[in-house]
């Protein structure tokens, strides 16, 4: 691969574990998967920007937690959580995510309510 550079980043541990499984199943590398997905994101964003379509940028901001659902829906001209969910799915962007630690705290809170 020509013109490549190394860089340092961090990734959710579980996500990396799952990515490794995919890489093994598809006989490729994490590096190749990362490049393919990053390229998809960049090219989709640029294509939308090139056609003056701000929608992908709005969805990306929502995905990254930089804007709320109400603001995103207003910018997209929709008024339901479901349509926002569908547009995120169509754009292949993940819904905003709380940290693994915050999620585990909630799991523990539920366990404290259950004896089953």
């Amino acid at each position: 691969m020509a013109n490549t550079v190394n860089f340092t980043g961090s990734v959710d541990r579980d996500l990396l574990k799952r990515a490794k499984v995919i890489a093994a199943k598809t006989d490729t590398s994490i590096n190749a998967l990362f490049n393919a997905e990053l390229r998809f994101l960049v090219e989709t964003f640029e294509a939308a920007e090139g056609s003056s379509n701000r929608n992908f940028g709005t969805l990306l901001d929502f995905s990254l937690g930089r804007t709320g659902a109400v603001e995103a829906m207003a910018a997209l001209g929709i008024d339901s959580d479901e349509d926002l969910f569908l547009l995120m799915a169509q754009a292949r962007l993940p819904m905003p995510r709380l940290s693994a630690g915050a999620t585990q705290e909630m799991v523990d809170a539920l366990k404290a309510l259950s004896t089953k």
Partner: protein
Amino acid sequence: MTGPVPAPADVALLPDAGPLITLAYADALELLFSPGWSVKLVDMVLHEVTRTRTPTSEKLAAWATRTEVTVLPTRTYTRYREAIAAGADPGKSNLGELAIQETMNDLAFAQPATVGVFLFEDHKIARASFLLPDNCRKISTRAYLMFLEGKGFIESAADIERRALRAGREFSNIRFPANP
């Protein structure tokens, strides 16, 4: 917040619109009943997920009827309907949150004491500022599914999320067809 484990009858699970939609796409609404807690819907939330025809609106309306889930009335929804009937446009932004906050407030004084488990999608937990009474919990759909997985009610929380995403992608192309 530690103390004796409440009886299942004293715990109410109240899903917001997001979790209902996610579970409807995953065809897994029945999971709301798995822990044996009562399931209740805030009237404004039920209205939000059924008011317009969407891939899940009829499924959710039918599920709510079939399971005879309790629908909790709120002043927010009553006033919303009154405004609509009067020909006004009350808007919709944050009405679901207002109705949920109202329900949380009511639960704070509920007798017999009830623990309210409010289910939200992650983004609402991160951004919406609810004033949470001691007997209420804010829980994400993901955390709820992981809890069910830990208790053996489901094999995989991630699989349920994947099912919702798969169905969402399928329906999104129907609801929002790409421009030719």
